């Protein structure tokens, strides 16, 4: 795709002051702002109910905004809906398909709905890329959950969108499909498609995204380059199950700021997973020297919930 340099610098999606209050009174979005760069993979991280799906639904035209504006490629989503909706493909979170239709006809139908003339060669390519070609005549109700997910992706790609939204793409997806899906996302990105995905999993965002946005309680808290954010989120915790419970932490271990839990049966140590020196080998050596034995050890990465708590409270202090 040929672009002038100014067009390339212009965000493909610009969300300004977007709010949504549902008829029941629930406020799902509070004046959200977001700029999505042309050709990037943006991951939106957030707990359930944070407003991820509402944000996507408004951009795609499924939900009316209460206030605020969204433009796609410079076109307003309400005034120029034909343009913006033709440019967007959406794979929603829920598996919703027309049970009695065949794979081929449902994907062809999607292409028609989005205003494109028939193109069997393109549909064939999409189905082959998603390993659905041998199922093209099967009724959707006879497919497995993973296959249905593939069908939904095929529907979203049927009209050759330039912006693709994947809402919780790895929910209930097996390893093989996840691998295929990520390969496909990378290929699409290579061809110039902008991809926005929502997820609960930091690992997923880490593996796929160029930038990560964090959304909580209807607000976009931050949008950062992945590498910068991962450093902030690098906090890890080591748990040692002791052979013998202890009543107090020996003074010789005070360098590590340990925490004694589970009635003196567990030692907890918080460290930076991205740091050169984690302090773990020296801690274990010192414990051996002191004759403190342990039965088991495990490390744990801060959960998203914990990260949110720290992000939101950091933000509150500023």
């Amino acid at each position, binding site marked *: 795709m040929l672009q002038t340099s100014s067009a390339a610098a212009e965000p493909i999606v610009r969300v300004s002051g977007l709010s949504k209050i549902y008829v029941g009174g629930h406020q799902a979005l509070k004046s959200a702002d977001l700029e999505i760069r042309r050709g990037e993979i943006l991951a939106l991280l957030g707990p359930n109910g944070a407003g991820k799906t509402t944000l996507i639904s408004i951009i795609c035209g499924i939900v009316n905004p209460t206030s605020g504006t969204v433009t796609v490629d410079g076109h307003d989503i309400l005034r120029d809906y*034909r343009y913006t*909706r033709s440019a967007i493909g959406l794979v929603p979170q829920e598996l*919703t398909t027309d049970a*009695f*239709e065949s794979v081929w006809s449902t994907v062809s139908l999607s292409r028609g*709905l*989005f*205003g494109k003339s028939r193109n069997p060669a393109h549909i064939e390519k999409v189905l082959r890329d998603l390993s659905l070609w041998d199922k093209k005549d099967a009724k959707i109700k006879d497919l497995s959950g993973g296959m249905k997910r593939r069908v939904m992706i095929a*529907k979203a790609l049927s009209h050759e969108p330039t912006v693709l939204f994947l809402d919780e793409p790895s929910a209930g997806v097996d390893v093989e499909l996840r691998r295929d899906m990520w390969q496909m996302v990378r290929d699409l990105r290579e061809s110039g498609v902008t991809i926005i995905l929502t997820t609960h999993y930091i690992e997923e965002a880490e593996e796929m995204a160029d930038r990560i946005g964090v959304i909580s309680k209807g607000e976009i808290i931050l949008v950062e380059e992945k590498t910068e954010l991962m450093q902030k989120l690098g906090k890890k915790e080591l748990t040692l199950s002791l052979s013998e419970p202890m009543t107090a932490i020996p003074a010789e271990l005070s360098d590590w700021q340990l925490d004694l839990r589970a009635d003196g049966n567990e030692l907890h140590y918080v460290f930076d997973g991205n740091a050169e020196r984690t302090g773990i080998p020296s801690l274990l050596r010192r414990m051996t020297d002191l004759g403190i034995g342990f039965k088991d050890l495990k490390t744990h990465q801060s959960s998203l919930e914990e990260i949110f708590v720290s992000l939101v409270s950091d933000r509150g202090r500023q």
Partner: protein
Amino acid sequence: MSVGSFNRHGVAAIYKFEMHRFARTLWTGLAVPVITTSLYFIVFGSAIGSRMTEVNGVSYGAFIVPGLMMLSLFTESIFNASFGIHMPRFTGTIYELLSAPMSAFETVLGYVGAAATKSMTVALVILATANLFVDVHIAHPFLMIAYLLLMAATFCLFGFIVGIWAKGFEQLQVIPLLVITPLTFLGGAFYSLDMLPEPWRTITLFNPIVYLINGFRWTFYDTADVAVELSLGITLLVFFVCLFVVRWIFKTGYRLKN
């Protein structure tokens, strides 16, 4: 990338999808009106009709044909159009329709066009079946088809509204069974208003279905209980009221986008 000013591929996609849905149940869809019509003719036409005099110069069996067609046209139109839009809302597949570059007009054209095609087909099958039992003369065949089309469109629009208003499948049944079918039976589908004593005759004149059925019967036999211009006027009024409500639904996003 741009779709232009009219998304004909989108309209065709909805129309084909809906017609495909009807095709899956083609045989029951056509057997039901044929059997029902035959039953009506055995009961009303032969058993009761043989003891009836002519109504406005038309044999009773022939007299009830337009009413029978209307009864099925109303219920089929409402059922098919309401189910067509309610089902995607129920299963969630409506996300795709809402995110597609389709105007309200195009969406309605696809759904209502398909539902009207089906209900008109059923009405014409009833006409053909009735022809096996009685001689049906059609005084104004073109006007008959035009009137049939107008009423199919009206009631399919009405069904579309019901399909969006309904919160569940039971509610889809409520309007046709509790409102439309009684009004049709009481609206002179099987009798002339002249057969009614007062005050029922006057009360009946407040039922809009009376005018629809009489207008349609006029295209067959050139006679009606009410003025044909009045019939046409009320039919158009109902059509535009439905059109206005559908327009309001899309403008506000009622039960679709809120």
